[in-house]
């Protein structure tokens, strides 16, 4: 104790502070120009404005418009159930579902879970369809959707109703049933209403989305990032991995679990979905307008440039495999045929994970997972 006193008494506070400042100055001047950090930082507000105004809201708008048309075409088909009207409805279903892939990753704000409702992506995009349960609701004339069986409604239940076994004559025959007509219309109507309401809610939410420009848990950037990642993992794990039989315990592939099993549009929709997901990374929307995205954000971070290069290389590997598969190829058949293209797709998506996942969040310093609990 005495010794400590002695040391402290002899200690000259001023000298200490001065030498401290000198050390700091030396260190700072010595190191400032060594690394490529961007001292201007990154303006997240600009990025959020770009996303809200040029990417997310336009995507919701177009999707809402196309689902409204879908609803009208189905109404029309129900009144005039012939093959031409069926084909028109089917084409419009493809168009609407294609656009749904572009709003799918934005599962927050107006599209987030609310009360008993799951996120918009889950409410309308659940697959595979539970055929037995769906037929049961049809037969009991239950169009209230007052249940949690999300695999009996949404885009993919509608797909099941419109495409059936792939034979349009059979589909037309099935639509002689008034109950089936009612159910199809109710499903289409629910899709439209949910997307329309999310679209209009976004007009108000957009302001708070842009204003919430921090990086902590719950900030817009962290919401955007988390849902981007989840959407990517949905493609990898559920659209490709699970039907391929990639899970532990699966002794064989389960091709009937692909998305769009009835319309054979699985590959096309995966391509669109991946484009939407990587569009978030790029800051690129449906109309092709490229602005501030995570790529630009990364370019200002420590180690960001290298990460961008590696990510883009791996994304191009994924795209090479994707473009080697025909848009209209039947994914379930490819899986059944043990196609190497499918296993390549699994492999390349798997390799992409770390770039999107831990590398990116770490470098950006975004609070990703600490929504529960503290750090130290």
């Amino acid at each position, binding site marked *: 104790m005495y010794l400590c006193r002695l040391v402290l008494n002899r200690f000259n506070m001023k000298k200490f502070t001065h030498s401290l400042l000198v050390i700091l100055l030396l260190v700072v001047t010595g190191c400032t120009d060594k*690394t490529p*950090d961007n*001292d201007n930082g990154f303006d997240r507000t600009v990025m959020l404005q770009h996303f809200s105004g040029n990417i997310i809201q336009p995507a919701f708008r177009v999707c809402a418009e196309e689902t409204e048309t879908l609803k009208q075409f189905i109404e029309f088909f129900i009144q005039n159930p012939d093959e031409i009207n069926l084909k028109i409805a089917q084409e419009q279903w493809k168009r609407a579902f294609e656009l749904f892939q572009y709003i799918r990753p934005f599962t927050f704000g107006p599209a987030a879970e609310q009360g008993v409702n799951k996120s918009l992506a889950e409410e309308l995009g659940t697959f595979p369809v539970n055929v037995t349960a769906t037929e049961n609701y049809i037969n009991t004339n239950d169009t209230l959707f007052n249940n949690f069986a999300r695999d009996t409604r949404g885009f993919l239940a509608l797909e099941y109703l419109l495409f059936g076994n792939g034979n349009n004559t059979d589909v037309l025959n099935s639509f002689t049933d008034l109950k089936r007509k009612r159910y199809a219309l109710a499903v289409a109507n629910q899709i439209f209403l949910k997307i329309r309401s999310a679209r209009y809610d976004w007009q108000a939410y957009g302001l708070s989305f842009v204003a919430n420009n921090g990086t902590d848990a719950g900030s817009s950037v962290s919401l955007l990032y988390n849902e981007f990642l989840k959407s990517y993992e949905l493609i990898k794990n559920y659209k490709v991995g699970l039907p391929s039989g990639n899970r532990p315990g699966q002794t064989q592939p389960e091709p009937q679990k692909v998305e769009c099993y009835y319309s054979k549009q699985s590959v096309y929709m995966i391509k669109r979905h991946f484009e939407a997901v990587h569009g978030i990374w790029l800051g690129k929307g449906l109309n092709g307008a490229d602005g501030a995205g995570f790529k630009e954000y990364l370019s200002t971070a420590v*180690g960001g440039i290298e990460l961008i290069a590696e990510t883009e290389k791996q994304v191009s590997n994924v795209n090479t495999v994707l473009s080697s598969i025909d848009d209209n190829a039947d994914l379930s058949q490819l899986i059944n045929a043990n196609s190497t293209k499918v296993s390549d797709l699994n492999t390349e998506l798997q390799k992409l994970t770390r770039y999107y996942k*831990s*590398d990116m969040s*770490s470098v950006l310093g*975004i609070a*990703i997972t600490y929504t529960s609990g503290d*750090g130290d």
Partner: protein
Amino acid sequence: MQYRPLQQTDIAPLAVFRIAFGLMMTLGTLRFMLLGWIEEHYTTPLFHFHYYGFEFIEPLNLAGMYVVHALMFASALGIMLGAFYRWSALTFFLTFTYTELIDLTYYLNHYYFVSIVALVMVFLPAHRCCSVDVKRNPSIAVDTVPRWCIDVIKLQTAVVYTYAGIAKINYEWLIEALPLRIWLPAQDTLPLIGKIMPYQATAYAFSWIGMLYDCTIVWWLMNSKTRPWAYVSVIIFHVLTGMMFQIGIFPMVMITTTLIFFSNGFHRKLLRFFDKKIAPVCAYEKALSYAQQKSRLAIAALAAHFTFQIIFPWRFMLYPGKLFWTEQGYRFSWRVMLMEKAGTATFYVQDARTGKEGIVVNSEFLNQHQEKQMAFQPDMILQYAHQLKAWYENKNIPVKKIRAEVYVTLNGSRSRLYIDPNVDLTQLYDNWQNKNWILPFEK
């Protein structure tokens, strides 16, 4: 000059500390419950990561966990009020430590600090002044206590700060200003100082000041001349870090704990705020006459405790490789906010029936927090593999082998393979020995 642990000193600092600590713990427990973390941390997850040597600790069901937290809350309140003090302190220590031991995911150095302090407090006569116990039984009131009762808190605080400071003396922290160069730019929306956050110079300044602060703050607090300024810096430092990082009640705990360094007179004044009857000047009348035997025992136990505290953080030197990378000897050593580390871990389970490897979807077993922590800590990776094996075998899926492809990034470095991707994790068991299946950081 000799240090005399039995020399009598005013009890006031100890009483203030008791009240402050009790208050912080009461608020902390309440916050934890209100945020819904009992469910998120303990009852929702399918798997829990056990502490080495505490594999038998399991969470109770939801009702049970609420009872535990209600007890924790009540006992923290008991500490604050000095009501049934020894039982309160003991109950708090047991309930708090039990909940911390449930899942390694949520390990925090300041929880470790709280556990230590709570245990020490069981043996301190902190309720013998300004407390409900004294109101109920005035004969237990004392004005003075042996000085080791106060110094033990000071010494523990000194250990925390000093080791946190020493840990910052490394190449990355001081010369590269990492991880602050990664973390600070994300803080550019802070009021007032947000604007300077993206600058490299800010990261360097914060790194150096942070290191010097942690290494020396205890000395400035001990010297009465520098104390007021030191305490202002304590407040600024912890408020700032509290705003920047999600570290919960830790800043408040340290701000209140460091009050212990203030003078007896200062604490007397504080106490009079709570209890008008407290004598304005310490009368030094009724010294707490601990039986000599008891005090000796306490001092011997504390000597052992602090020997452990001082030696244990250095155990990392017994392991080869880079500490930040292997994390062998990282925990329980006051290494706080030292590195930015993250990983992506893909587990491959080989089915003994088909020989086929299946890929585990981690989110089906772990919450986000668990997955994040697991993905860059070798002992957790190993534990997870064992839990997966048990889970699949329970589902009648025979497991031949489990391996993991783990990519980890450290302080913005490009991510690289973390462990041997071919090693069968089910054949390995955690122990104190070097984990030679961790790949070196250097390429």
